[in-house]
Every structure is written in C-alpha cells, then in structure tokens.
C-alpha cells in the first residue's frame, strides 16, 4: 500500500514538487496526488514514470469512485530493480506514441479518450498486456477496494449470510 513519507508533509510536498499531468505531482523520489492526500516513494523508477503508470492503470480500468492511491498500489510492484528497465522502456514508448498523436506526453493528454486512443494503438504490445494483466489482480484483489464495489469478502467468520440477508432482496 501507499504511505506518506514522514518528511513529506502536505505543505512540504506541494512546495517541493512539480505537476505531472493534472492528477499527480512528483518530486525527488516520490509521486503524490495533486491534493497531497497520498504519496508513494519510488526507488527504481523515475517519479514521472510511476505517475504515468498510475494514469495508464486508471485509463485501462477507470472507476471514478476509486481513488488514485489504489491504482498506485496496484502498480507499485513495478518499482523494483528487475522490472524498472522494462517499465521505463514501455512508458517511453507510450510517451512517444503520445507525441506522435500531438501531445507533449501521455500525461499531458487532457482527455481520457485521447489517452485511450494512444493505448488502443499499443494494446497488443507485451508492455500493455503485462500492465493490464497485472491490474486484474493488482487492482481488484485489493481487499481495501472491495467495499467500494459493495463486495463483502469472507463471510465464514460471521457465520455466513444465513442470518445476514442472503435472501433480503425486496424490489422484485
């Protein structure tokens, strides 16, 4: 999960960072939400790369009621020595495609449909498929995400639903 480094108070963070697209700010060794509600340290990836990856994750599986921190958590695993070179290359290709489409970068494309067009153009690439495939578990298997979809998770410890509404539908 994401954490806010102790040194990164909201004020300090906003003072030290620069905008990366509309949703993110980046500074030395971290990426954060523009509201500074969350931040994540990165060790192996460039902060801009991680910001791009988080935006890409949201554009692949956009849920407007799910905060960026969950997308950040879903792709945090790519910030490793093994994965970083491939991710940097993949994001570079993504940015190159964005430039080809007339944007300064992927994050600079303001409309989701423009970013999705860029993704459609590379959806058969191993990079895209790796990121998409990883998100299926990386995003939807976060227990903290489940309540946002109403899903209640394990029920055995509560005795199942026999007395907790397994048949409580009322609108039929």
């Amino acid at each position, binding site marked *: 999960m994401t954490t806010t480094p102790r040194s990164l108070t909201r004020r300090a963070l906003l003072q030290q960072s620069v905008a990366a697209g509309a949703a993110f700010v980046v500074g030395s060794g971290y990426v954060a939400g523009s509201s500074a509600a969350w931040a994540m340290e990165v060790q192996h990836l460039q902060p801009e790369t991680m910001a791009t990856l988080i935006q890409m994750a949201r554009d692949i599986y956009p849920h407007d009621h799910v905060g960026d921190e969950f997308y950040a958590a879903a792709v945090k695993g790519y910030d490793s020595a093994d994965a970083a070179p491939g991710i940097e290359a993949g994001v570079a290709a993504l940015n190159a495609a964005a430039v080809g489409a007339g944007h300064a970068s992927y994050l600079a494309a303001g409309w989701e449909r423009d970013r999705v067009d860029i993704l459609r153009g590379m959806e058969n690439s191993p990079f895209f498929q790796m990121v998409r495939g990883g998100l299926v578990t990386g995003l939807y298997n976060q227990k903290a995400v489940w309540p946002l979809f109403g899903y209640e998770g394990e029920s055995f410890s509560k*005795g199942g639903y026999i007395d907790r509404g397994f*048949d409580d539908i009322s609108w*039929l």
Partner: protein
Amino acid sequence: MAAPFDLNDDSVVVVIGTGAGGGVLSNELAQKGVSVVALEAGGRYLPQDYINDEWESFGQLAWLDPRTTSGDWRVAKDFSGLPAWIVKAVGGTTTHWAGASLRFQDHEWKARTNYGEVQGANLLDWPIDGAEMAPWYEKAEAKLGVTRTGDRAGLPGNNNFKVFEAGAKALGYEQVHTGRMAINSSDYDERPSCQQVGFCFQGCKFGAKWSAAYTDIPRGEATGNLEVREKAHVARIVHDASGKVTGVEYFDADGNLQMQKARIVCVAGNSFESPRLLLNSASSMFPDGLANSSGQVGRNYMRHMTGSVYAVFDKPVKMWRGTTMAGIIQDESRHDPSRGFVGGYELETLSLGLPFMAAFLDPGAWGREFTTALDMYENMAGMWIVGEDMPQETNRVTLNHDVKDQYGLSVANVHFDDHPNDIAMRNHAYKQGMAVYDAVGATRTFPTPPYPSTHNLGTNRMSENARDGVVNKWGQTHDIANLFISDGSQFTTGAAENPTLTIVALAIRQADHIAREMSAGNL
C-alpha cells in the same frame, strides 16, 4: 488409522486420484474389505484449511502444473496455460464443485440413437442406460445427501436465485427450483446445513457441501483397508510380459521415484491426467500407450457447452451472498432439434466474487465498457450455462513432448474446437439467459465466455465394442483386464447435466463389480 501397505504388496488395488471417482471408489472398496492404496498428487486440506478468498484459495487448491492448449476455443486464448479449473488435493475437485447433482435423462444415454448422425461428431451410445443406473444413482444421492431426492428438502433460495426465478417465470419456464444439490438443507450424515457462506467454490468451511475430502476418504481410512498417500504424483503404470498391469511408479512427497505393486490399478486423475498417464505409460508392448488399441485414448474430449450470463439491474442483488449455485431452470434440457441443435442445456445460477468477476466477465477486456459493468457489481445477477457438447475425435489430449512438468514428464496438450452444434446451443442459451434477466428489468446483460473447464469428460470413453472406445460398461479397459478407469474420462457422451453425481454412481457400481470379480477369482 491409515493402513500402511508395503510397496511390494501385490494384493492391493491402487487407485490414482481421490476425487469424485477415485475417492468414492477407494472408500467403497475399503468398506468391502478390499485393501486399497490411493495415490493423490495433491495435499490434504480440510474445512478448517479452506479460505474464503478467491485468489488465495485458488493458489491453495487449483491444479497449476503446466499444460498447453490449442484449438479455436476461447479458453486457449484467454487462459492458454490453464485449460481446466480443477483441484489438486485429497478429495480432488469435490472440494471445489458447486454441488449440482442431476441424473442423466434417459435419452442422453443413447445419444447416437436419439440424435442420429451429426456431422463431425463421434457420437456413440453408452453401453448402459437409465434403468441400469437407477439403483446406483439412488445410492449416490443418499451418499451425497442430494436435496429434492429421497425425503431431503430443497435449499432456500438466495437473492441471486430470486431474480433468476422471477425472470424464468415471467418468461414462462416451469421447471425452476433451487436445484438438486449435494448441500445439506438440514443436518445430514454428520454434516451441518448450509449457512449461506457464498464460497462453495473455495471449499465449504462448514462441510455442508459433500466432498470426498471429509466423508469418503476418512471413512475409508477408518476401516484400516485404505491408505492415502498424499503428494504422490504417478508417473507410469507398468505391466508384465502377459500385458497385465503390475504396479505404479510415482514420485513421492520428497520427489523420490517409488514403485507400488498392485493387483488392480484404477485411474481417476480427471480427463487430462488419466489419458496423459496411459499415454506416458507407453512400452514396447503398448507403443501407443496403455489400453489404446482403439486409438481412442485422449480423444473425444468434452467440456460441456458452457458460458455465463450476467446482468445488471437498477437495484442491488448482492449475488455473492449464499449458495454459489442456488437454482436451476431445466426447461431447455430436453432434446428438441427444432431449436437448431441436438441435446439440451441447463441454466444454473452462479456468482463470482469481485476478484474473479474482474478476471472472468470478459477476459482481456478493458476500458469503460468493462469497468462500468464492474461498477454495478452489487446490482449484478448471474447464471451459468451447462449443455451437452459433441464428442469429436480431434478434440483430444495428447502428450506435448516439448513441455515437461516438474518431474520431467511430458505434459498434456488439450486441443478443443467448438462443434457447430455447441455454438448453436450456446447462442440459444445466451439469448434465453439474457431474456430471463430482461424480463425482470435488467439494464445491461453480458453473454460471458466459458471459463477454464471444470467438467472434463470423455478422453477414455466407455463403449460396447473395443474398437470404439477404451473401457467397457464397468470402466474396465477393453485391452487390460486389471486396469480400470474410474473418473469422468470414461463418459461416452456428456449429457446436459453436471457430471459429479454420475461419476459417483459409476464409482459405487464399479467398486461393487471389482469386489465381486476379486471374490470370484476373475481379477
């Protein structure tokens, strides 16, 4: 409790696999005083071990050894290394199964006669019929505690069922109920009633659902006649110069190759592993694999015509609450060629948790068309389609010599192409399933493609004549008298019904036959 038999004890029956076929057969033989060594590739997990978490449970129970796929079925594209969703554990896939326990319909035992010649299909009549199987079905239903059979009441319907039932009735369907399920509706056979936990697929933590893992296996062990060796992966069945099988080579839990002698060998490793084992047991005497004089070992692979329909409504359903498979529509299970296909299908409610819904609703899909569906997860209802698919000789399990498992054994390649009859039936079922939900106000419906197969059938099929199949009406191989097939791979055709009840009934019947033949000195 467990009876340790010596590796050189050649009086034992060796059973390979401990699921619906092998687990039941092992216990039934043990109850009759027959000495049994059951070799199980997986470990032992009991209700206290089961996990109410889809991916974590999948990692605990699923058979994840490498396999490869080919053919035009969508599973080969979406899940190329995972053609089946089955279990590697003591009790086999009875840990995971939903519990639907339906008898074949009489006409389904004689598919070739009743459906006629279907181009491209290798249809054949079973050498047995509904009358022959009726008493065995009755024993199987009593063993499993099947609801709506005997004097056992049906289960209560959950939210997912209520939506399904209302839609079915609005559409004019008449055979709609909460199913014949091997899930207790009241205490039965030392197991409690269903607590509506909602994780049937992950192993029932209350033990309300029948599984061989905590019924037949421990009861067989309690007789002193059954020894279950866990994490014992069978590599090869060996035979003598006369062609009779004499034992089984397996890798034990420490990876050491062992050899267990046997009087009789019964293979029950599911429809991929069973033919794979026969093929991997090829010898100079049987160069095409054991029991394969017909050339049918591995062929006629069937997986049921499946698919799912999910629907979103403008109000909550919470389909994950309660029994995973909570009800059935049987009106379409008849054989009625006027619909454009032979055979029939059942519609059965199904629910997936959010993690598996994300993986299975439309594999590979992304973007808002997909995510707006998941956004409405709480308002979703779901059903599974299970229908008779056509046996085809070219749908088959073969050895892939380019890919080896952790023991260096060639893995199974599973080739499957949909038959036009399968496609016509699936399209009909999608249309009917979506109509069920539309009839109660669905705002969106999703004709969801098949998951990796749990109903794997037919790859060592039963036949009257040795040239047409691998085993006779007892599951005994035509070629080798003391070699039996005891799982769903012996199915001649698949019928429309979930196969477990029939696998169990055949296993009880086979145990009776083997014990009798042993007593008579014929085996």
